[in-house]
Structures are given as C-alpha cells and as structure tokens.
C-alpha cells in the first residue's frame, strides 16, 4: 500500500477525538446518500408501478383511429408481423350505468377479445374471485371496490344501461330495458382508480351495448421484454403507413402510441418531481462535502509540522496532496457505502415503516386514495444508483482537494518552523 494511502487511513480512523470527527463526516455523507437513494427509488417505484399497471391493463402500446376501427382482424395481422411484437388484442371501451338493487354506479367498461386478451393483458393475475375463462357474453367481471360498493358478489346479477339506449329512446316512446349480466368474477389490480370503478365484459357484448357492429376502439399490443416500446411503436406506424397504401382493409388515420406517449404529461410531472427532489437532496451531500472540507482544513493546519516532516523524509508534494485528497475520497467511499446500506435497508422495510406511521396517524386510507397504491413502491434504476454514487464520491473528493492543495504548497522548512 502506498504510504500516502496508509497514512490517510491511519489519520482518518485513529482512535479518539479524530475518529469522532471522521465519523461525523462519514455519517453526514451517508445520510445524504441514504436520503437520495430512498427518494429516487420511491419516485422511480411510482413510475415503475404505474408503467406496470398501464402495461398490464393496456399492453405496451395501443393502436387507435380517430373513429372506430372496422376491420380489426386485418389490422392485427399487420401488427403481429412487426418485429418485436408478441401479440395483439382488440378492445372497445366506454362508460355505462351499472345498477344492482336500485343502487346505481357509473363505471368505465372494457370489452375484451377473449380469444387473444390473455396473450396481451395478464388479467388472470389480478382476478381474486372467479375466473377470466368463465367470462361470456352474458357475464361480467367487476373491480373489487365497485363490487363492494354495490354489494355485488360472484353469482349476483347486475343491470347495465348504455348511452346507446338514450340514442334509441330519443323521439320514441320506448321503455328502456337494461341488459342483465351475471357477475362471474372480481378483480383487484392495486390501482385505486381502476379498482374502484371498472367493469369487464366480452368484446362482443361491448359491441352490442355500444352498437359498434364489428368495430373496436383500438388494439392493445404486447412486445418482447427486450424491446423498446417507442422503437416498436415507430415500426408499427411505419408498417401501418405501408399497409394503408396496399390494402383497402386497412383504414387511414390509424396511429400507434407507446404507453409512455399515452401518459406523457403524467410521466413528465413524475420526472419533474423526481428531478426537483434529487436537486434538493443533493444539497445535503454538498453540505456534508463542506463539512469534510472544514475537517480536512483543520487537519492540515494542525498537522503543518508533520507535513514538513513528511517532506523532510522525502515525500513529494504530489504524494502529500494525495494523502489529504485520499482522506476526502475515503470519507466519500465509506459514507456512500454506508448510505447505500442504510438506504436499501430502509427500502426493504419501507412498507413496515409506512404501516407504522399510518397506524399512528390513521392515514392509511388517505394514502391509498391519493397515491393509488396499497404498498409503497420502490424501484432503483441502475442509472440513479450511478448518479448517487458518483456525485457523492466526486463531491467528497472535491472537498479534499482544497486542503490537499494547501498541504502540498507548504515548504518543508516553513512547515517545520511553524508554531
């Protein structure tokens, strides 16, 4: 081990008063890193979970038209040939009035193509009662909170009123009869908005309810895990453009959008929040770097004669500078490592911590209502980890540079003469 590293470590981790100051510097860096990693991971977790919910309920990307898509099967054939696409499924969606025992509700409704939906949307994962396979044209699957609010259970019947009934009734003295469907399942995704107000029926039933004929509102597409959604979206758009010129089955005005494009504004707000929090918390690391610098400056002043001695023993200025600079680096490396350990430990037990806090404050319901998740999400992106580690170590190194520069400038003879 070079002498300057040996002495740097000895000076940093010697027992007594000096060790206390070293530990304060290390803890301040560790706290900054811990806060950064927790906040970036939780913010990243929100984005990751939201992406997961979107992809699980809509696929990686959607193909839509300005109106209805009339020939969905031809369009699916074109989409399925695009490299990176695993599967596609048509859907129709809207809003209905749902009634059970004179209790009305106005959920959104999804009509799914039962032949292909499972290849694109892993709904089975979220079914908590019943089975997706049992869904037919006379049945319905309800979201958990909707079922709870209506008092509906598997096996009960619910009535559905659609906007089409209003169209039919206009100017006619007809009695509106709702469609009665049997509840065969209940699902829970873990997203408050979707769980509180969603109904799933077959695509054929949805086409009847909305009078779409064979039309659909869009195609959900699943891509390979290794593929980039935006890249595959661009490929599909190119394929659609090409197909529109060749086939009369492919209507004009079709466009594909990836999940991130479809939720661009929301994701932008999330990213902005994350960036602002990162900048604010980076200030903690900067403050700890100043603390390290003041510690090392005091050390240089206190050790002036020793610096003179090192010069007298043959140490070069560069080596003396390195000795002090490495103390800053060591504080940065140890502090960052501890910060990562503390941070990941906190993230591991985050739900217990949240549960404890919300139990004391009685705010668990509020948390679920506003944050949409029953558990605190966390996802640490590798790039975030690299940013945190590099910024903490670079700032600590910079903190050691000024004391190192001052130490290196001391002439041995002047240092030895100093009082």
């Amino acid at each position: 081990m070079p002498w300057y590293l040996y002495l740097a470590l000895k000076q940093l981790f010697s027992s007594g008063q000096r060790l206390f100051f070293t530990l304060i510097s290390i803890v301040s860096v560790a706290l900054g890193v811990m806060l950064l990693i927790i906040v970036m991971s939780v913010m990243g977790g929100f984005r990751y979970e939201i992406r997961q919910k979107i992809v699980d309920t809509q696929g990686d990307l959607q193909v839509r038209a300005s109106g209805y898509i009339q020939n969905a099967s031809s369009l699916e054939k074109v989409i399925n040939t695009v490299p990176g696409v695993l599967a596609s499924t048509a859907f129709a969606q809207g809003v209905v009035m749902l009634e059970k025992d004179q209790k009305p509700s106005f959920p959104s409704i999804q009509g799914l193509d039962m032949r292909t939906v499972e290849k694109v949307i892993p709904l089975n994962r979220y079914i908590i009662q019943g089975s997706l396979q049992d869904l037919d044209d006379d049945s319905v699957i309800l979201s958990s909170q909707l079922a709870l609010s209506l008092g509906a259970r598997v096996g009960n019947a619910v009535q559905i009123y659609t906007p089409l009934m209003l169209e039919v009734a206009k100017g006619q003295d007809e009695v509106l009869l709702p469609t009665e469907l049997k509840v065969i399942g209940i699902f829970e995704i873990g997203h408050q908005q979707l769980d509180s107000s969603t109904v799933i029926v077959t695509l054929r039933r949805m086409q009847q309810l909305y009078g779409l004929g064979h039309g659909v509102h869009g195609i959900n597409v699943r891509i390979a895990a290794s593929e980039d959604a935006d890249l595959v979206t661009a490929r599909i758009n190119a394929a659609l453009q090409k197909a529109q010129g060749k086939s009369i089955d492919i209507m004009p005005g079709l466009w594909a959008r990836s999940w991130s494009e479809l939720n661009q504004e929301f994701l932008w707000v999330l990213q902005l929040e994350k960036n602002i929090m990162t900048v604010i918390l980076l200030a903690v690391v900067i403050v700890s770097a100043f603390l390290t610098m003041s510690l090392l400056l005091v050390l240089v002043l206190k050790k002036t004669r020793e610096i003179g001695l090192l010069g007298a023993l043959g140490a070069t200025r560069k080596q003396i500078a390195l000795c002090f600079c490495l103390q800053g680096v060591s504080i940065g490396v140890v502090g960052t490592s501890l910060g990562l350990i503390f941070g990941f430990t906190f993230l591991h037990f985050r739900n217990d911590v949240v549960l404890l806090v919300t139990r004391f404050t009685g705010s668990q319901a509020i948390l679920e209502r506003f944050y949409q998740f029953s558990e605190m999400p966390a996802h640490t992106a590798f790039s975030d980890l690299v940013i945190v580690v590099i910024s903490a170590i670079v700032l600590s190194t910079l903190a050691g540079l000024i004391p190192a520069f001052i130490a290196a400038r001391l002439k041995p003879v002047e240092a030895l003469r100093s009082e």
Partner: protein
Amino acid sequence: MSNPVLFAQALVKSYQSGDRRLEVLRGVNLQVLPGETVSIRGESGSGKSTLLHLLAGLDSPENGSIVWGKETNPDAVRSTGYLGMVFQAFYLIPELNARDNILMAKRIQGGLDQAAYARADELLKKVGLSERANHLPSQLSGGECQRVAVARSLMNFPQVIVADEPTGNLDEQTGDSVISLLIDLCADMKTSLVLVTHNPSHAMRTQRQLILKHGVLLEA
C-alpha cells in the same frame, strides 16, 4: 583521504526583517567526512537551524553550494535516504506507534519488505524500546519519543545525520542519554553526524567542534 559525505561552500542566507535585511550566514564552509561527528554551537539566533536546514536540503542558500556525496539536487538527496534527520520537537506522527513511525522513513522511500521490518525491530532494540514498539507517541515519554526519532533517522542507512538540538525538549539526564545513544549508533553504523546544540558537554563528545559566529563557522 575519503570523499566528504557533505561538502558546503560559501553558503550565504539572509532574511528580511522589517525594513532591513538580516544576513544570517555569510559564507559558511563545512566538510564532513564519512563516519565523522561534528558539532555546531552558537548563540540563539546565530543561524544554527538555518544552516542545518540548508545542510538537510530543506532550504536553498542564496549563494554557495552543497554537495551530498556526489549529488547536488536536494530533492534527490531526500528521496534516496542519504540523509537522516533528528529534530528538537521529535515530530513523530501521533497516529502511528513507535515501530510504524520508524518504518515511515522506509515507506516514503519505497520498498517496504520483511528486511525493513527486521531493521525497524533491530533499531528499536538498539534504542532500548523493543517493549514499547506498539506504543503510540502519546504513551511515550519525551526521551523515548526522541529515541524513536533517532531510530527513524537511521532507518534508511543514511550516510549522514543532521540533528537540530535533539535534547532541547529533554531534561539534562535524558538529554545526555539521547546524545550518547545518537553518537554511539552513528559510530556503530559508520554514519556521519552533524549535531547542532547549545550544550558544550554534548558538543565535546563529537570529534570536531565548530562555533557559528557572525554568520561564519569557526573551529572551537
């Protein structure tokens, strides 16, 4: 006749003191032969420490030249371990124990190996501190600290040791024992010694006694 291990010629050094320039050294000449012990005495402020810093290559003269063996570059001299130094204030590194303080001289020069550890242990034995090898400077007395400093100065087998009032911070009895140790070790290892001291009895123990007066060295 052997070549001198240290040869200083016409050294001039002055300091600015307010408006006037204080000429401390006015043409100092000194030649130290291999194994020779030389003492330099003088009044306070006569320039003894200034001369020693020049001889140790820690400072540069305004005029004159110094040759260490065949080397004239002070940085090269310091980096080869040609010189050993002992200071009045010991200058031990407080975070290192006695053994590691001695080894520090070798660590800086490079090439720390088993032989270096054995050498450090041998020196500790010679200065009578084998039992205190793992003690920190704060756990040692002033005399013991200076013994460690003496051992450190000898670690790299120097050709010459320059000692700047090594007994200045010690009581008379301890000072005497440190000087005895320094002179005996230098004689054992055939190392030359330039000793700056206030104490005439310590000076008398060297082979040659010089006095620094009015900026020049005179035979006592």
